C-alpha cells in the first residue's frame, strides 16, 4: 500500500467535480423528500392514507421497495428506495474508473513503475469511494437530524447509504480484476447491480401476494439495505452481512489482482482467425462485431426482467383480489384490472428508462471509436461519415427495440396476456429514441461533452422518480420524453404523442449527423 495516500489525493483531485456532485446530489435527496412530504400532507390522516395505499401498490413496491410504516421518516426512506441503486452505480463506476480504465490507458504502468505498492492503486480507489460514501451518509444523517427527525433513524439511513457505496465499491473492484478491460469490468459490475435490484424487486412484489418468492429479496444486498427500515424497525442486524460482503469482495479483489498480469484479465486471450470472414466488408458488419456483445447482453438482461416482471404479475393479481380497499380505490380510476394495469405500466416505464441507457451507451460507442483513432482508420477508406455513424446508430435504435421486445414478450407470456403487456413495453421505444437522438446531437455538435448524454438520461430518470413528489412544474415534467408515453396498458392508446416523439428523435439525430459531417474528426 506504499504511496496509497498520494494516489488517494490524485483521485480526489481528478474527481473534484463529479464526486461532490454525486455525494451531495444523492446525500441531500432525503432532506428534499422530507420537505416535500411536509408540504404535501396537511394532516396526519392524509399521510397515513397515502402510506396504506402505497404499501399495497405493486408498481410502487417494484420501483421503491417495501413500506411497513406511515411516519414521515419511513415514507422518505421508502420513496428514496431507488437511491441505493444510484449509489451503487456511483461506487462501482468510480472504482473501475480509477483502476481498470487507468490500466487500459497505460497510466497504471507509469504509476506502478514509481515507488508505489502493488495494492496501492486498488486501495486508493476503494478508499476514495469508501470515504465519499461515508461523507454521503454523514450528510444524510446530519440533514435528517437537523430537520427534526429521530437521531436513531437518521443515523441508520446514513449507514444504509454509506454501506451501499461500500458493497458496490467492492463489487467494482472484483469486476475490475475479472475482465480484460474497463468496458468489460463496468458491464460485469453493472450487471451485478442490476441482478441485485431485480432480485429485490421480485422478492418484494412476491411478498405482497403469496410470498412464495420472497426469499429472492434476501439474496440481494439492496434487499438487505431495505430491510434495515430506518425510522421504523431500525434493524441494524442487516449491517453485518453488508460489512462482511464488503470485506470479502475487497479481499477477493486484492487477491485476484496478484493473480493476473498488468493489462490482462483472468481469462487468457486466445488466438483468432488469420483472415476475415467474407462478410466483414462494410461498416455495418464491423458495427455488428463491435455491438453484438452489448446487444446479446442487454437482450438477455431484458428477457430476465420480463420473466421476473411477468412472474410477479400473478402476485399482483392475487393482491387485487384479496385487498378490497385497494381494489375499491383502483376501481375508481379504471375498473377491476386497474391495479394490474398500473403495475405493468410502471414496469414498462422503468424498462423504457433502462433501455434508454442501452441506447445512449450504444450511441456513445461512436465517440469511443473516434477517440481511440478507430474512426480515423475507417474514415480514410471508402466509408462516408453518414455510413460510419449510421452503422452505430442502427444498433442504438434497434438494439433497445430488441431488448424491449424480449422483455415485453416474456413478461406477457408468463403473465398470460401477451398483447397489452408487450404493447406497453414497445410504446416506450419512441421515447428511448429521443434520448439516442440527443446523444447523436451531442456527438455531432459538442463531441467533447458527448458523455453529457448520460446526464440527459439521469434527468429523465429523476423527473420520473422524483418529479411527481417534488411537484415539479408541468413544463419540467414535459421535458422528459417518458412523460409523454401513454400509460399502457390501461390508458387509451393514442398514437400522436408517439409519432411526435419519433419525429423529435429523428430531428435530433438528423441534426447531429449533419453536424458530424461538417466538423473535424477526431476532436
Amino acid at each position, binding site marked *: 500500500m506504499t504511496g496509497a495516500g498520494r494516489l488517494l489525493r490524485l483521485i480526489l483531485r481528478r474527481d473534484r467535480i463529479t464526486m461532490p456532485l454525486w455525494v451531495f446530489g444523492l446525500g441531500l435527496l432525503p432532506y428534499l423528500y422530507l420537505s416535500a412530504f411536509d408540504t404535501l400532507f396537511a394532516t396526519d390522516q392524509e399521510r397515513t392514507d397515502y402510506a396504506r395505499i402505497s404499501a399495497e401498490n405493486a408498481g410502487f413496491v417494484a420501483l421503491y421497495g417495501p413500506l411497513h410504516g406511515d411516519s414521515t421518516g419511513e415514507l422518505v426512506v421508502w420513496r428514496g428506495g431507488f437511491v441505493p441503486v444510484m449509489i451503487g452505480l456511483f461506487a462501482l463506476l468510480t472504482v473501475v474508473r480509477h483502476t481498470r480504465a487507468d490500466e487500459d490507458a497505460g497510466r497504471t504502468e507509469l504509476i506502478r513503475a514509481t515507488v508505489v505498492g502493488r495494492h496501492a492503486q486498488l486501495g486508493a480507489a476503494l478508499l476514495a469511494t469508501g470515504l465519499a460514501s461515508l461523507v454521503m451518509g454523514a450528510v444524510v444523517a446530519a440533514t435528517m437530524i437537523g430537520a427534526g427527525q429521530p437521531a436513531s433513524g437518521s443515523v441508520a439511513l446514513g449507514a444504509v447509504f454509506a454501506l451501499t457505496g461500500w458493497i458496490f465499491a467492492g463489487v467494482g473492484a472484483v469486476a475490475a480484476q475479472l475482465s480484460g478491460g474497463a468496458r468489460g469490468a463496468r458491464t460485469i459490475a453493472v450487471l451485478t447491480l442490476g441482478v441485485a435490484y431485480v432480485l429485490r424487486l421480485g422478492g418484494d412484489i412476491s411478498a405482497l401476494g403469496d410470498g412464495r418468492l420472497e426469499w429472492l429479496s434476501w439474496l440481494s444486498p439492496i434487499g438487505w439495505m431495505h430491510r434495515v427500515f430506518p425510522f421504523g424497525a431500525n434493524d441494524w442486524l442487516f449491517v453485518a452481512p453488508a460489512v462482511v460482503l464488503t470485506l470479502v469482495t475487497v479481499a477477493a479483489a486484492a487477491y485476484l489482482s496478484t493473480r493476473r498480469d498488468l493489462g490482462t484479465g483472468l481469462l487468457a486471450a486466445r488466438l*483468432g482467425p488469420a*483472415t476475415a470472414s467474407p462478410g466483414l466488408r462494410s461498416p455495418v458488419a464491423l458495427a455488428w462485431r463491435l455491438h453484438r456483445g452489448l446487444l446479446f447482453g442487454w437482450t438477455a438482461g431484458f428477457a430476465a426482467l420480463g420473466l421476473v416482471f411477468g412472474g410477479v404479475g400473478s402476485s399482483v393479481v392475487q393482491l387485487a383480489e384479496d385487498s378490497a380497499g385497494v381494489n375499491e380505490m383502483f376501481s375508481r380510476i379504471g375498473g377491476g384490472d386497474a391495479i394490474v394495469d398500473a403495475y405493468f405500466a410502471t414496469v414498462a416505464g422503468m424498462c423504457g428508462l433502462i433501455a434508454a441507457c442501452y441506447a445512449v451507451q450504444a450511441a456513445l460507442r461512436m465517440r469511443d471509436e473516434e477517440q481511440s483513432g478507430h474512426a480515423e482508420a475507417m474514415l*480514410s477508406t471508402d466509408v462516408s461519415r453518414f455510413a460510419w455513424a449510421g452503422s452505430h446508430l442502427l444498433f442504438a435504435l434497434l438494439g433497445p427495440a430488441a431488448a424491449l421486445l424480449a422483455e415485453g414478450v416474456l413478461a406477457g407470456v408468463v403473465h398470460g396476456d401477451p398483447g397489452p403487456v408487450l404493447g406497453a413495453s414497445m410504446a416506450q421505444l419512441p421515447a428511448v429514441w429521443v434520448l439516442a437522438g440527443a446523444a447523436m446531437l451531442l456527438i455531432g455538435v459538442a463531441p467533447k461533452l458527448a458523455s453529457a448524454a448520460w446526464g440527459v438520461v439521469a434527468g429523465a430518470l429523476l423527473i420520473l422518480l422524483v418529479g411527481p413528489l417534488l411537484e415539479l412544474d408541468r413544463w419540467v415534467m414535459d421535458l422528459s420524453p417518458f412523460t409523454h408515453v401513454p400509460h399502457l396498458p390501461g390508458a387509451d392508446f393514442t398514437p400522436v404523442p408517439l409519432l411526435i416523439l419519433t419525429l423529435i428523435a429523428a430531428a435530433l439525430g438528423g441534426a447531429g449527423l449533419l453536424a458530424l459531417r*461538417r466538423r473535424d474528426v477526431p476532436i
Partner: protein
Amino acid sequence: MTEAVDVDGLIKRFGAVTALDELDLHVRTGEVHGFLGPNGAGKTTTIRVLLGLMRPDGGTARLLGGDPWADATALHRRLAYVPGDVTFWPNLTGGEVIDLLGRLRGGLDPKRRNDLIERFELDPRKKGRAYSKGNRQKVALVAALASDVELLILDEPTSGLDPLMEEVFREVILQEKRRGDRTVLLSSHILSEVEALCDRLTIIRAGRAVETGTLDDLRHLTRTTIRAELTSPVNGLAALSGVHDLSTEDGRVAFDVDADALEPALKSLVAAGVRSLVSQPPSLEELFLRHYATDERSGR
C-alpha cells in the same frame, strides 16, 4: 508534371492555436516525397486535411485532382493511409483488420497480403490488444501496402519497428518506387530513411514549409565542414561571407562553409599551402538540425 498533392497557403486553427500557417506542399505523381518536421509542426494536421477529416480555415488543398473534403470517399478509394498512432479494435484480429480495411478501400490482393505478412513476420491471428506498438504498426502497413492504390499516405510509418523491419519497409517502398505508378507521401523523423527513399522532400516548421526540393537541392543549402593543417598563416578567410565559426590554432584551421563560398575558401587555403585536409560532406542531419533549432532565421 501532374501533382498528386497540391497544397497552397493552407491555414488551420484550433482555437487560439494556429496549427498550419499558410503551408505549401507539392507532391508530384509517381514520386516518394519526404515530409519532415519537428513534433507538433503540423504534419499530422496536414495529412488529416488531405484525408478530408479536417476542414481547413484557409488556402487550397487538392488531392489526386479532387477536393479532399467534398470528394472524400471517392478519393479514399484511390489511397491508403497509415496513421501515426495506430490502435485497432480489441476484439478483431490483425488479419481481420487488414482484410476489413482493404475491402473498405475497394479490395486488396490476397497474394500480396500474405507475402507482406510473411515479410513483416506478423502473426495475423492475435487480437488488437495483444499487439505491441510495432506489431500494430505492421498491421496498418500491411493493410495499406496490400491495397492496389495510387497514393500511399504514411504518417511516421516505421515508429516502433525494429531495425530489421525498418529494412523490410525500405525494400517494399523501393519496390513500389520501381513500379513508378505509385505516389508516396512519407512523414518521417528517420533521416537515413528519407535519404534512402525520397526523391524530394519538404521540411515544415510551426505550420509552414521552410524548405522544399530534392535532396541535392537541399544539400546545396548546407555547409561543409573543413579542417586543414597549413604551412603558413591563411589570409582573407575570415573576410569571406560564406565562412562560419572559423578557428585558427598553431597552423590548423577549422570552419564551416556555405556551398557557394566553397571555391574561394579552398583557393585561399591552397594559397597558404595545405599539409592535410579533411572535409565533412553536408548531411541531412545538419540541415534538419538547422531548421529544427529555434533560431530566428528559419522561422518566425
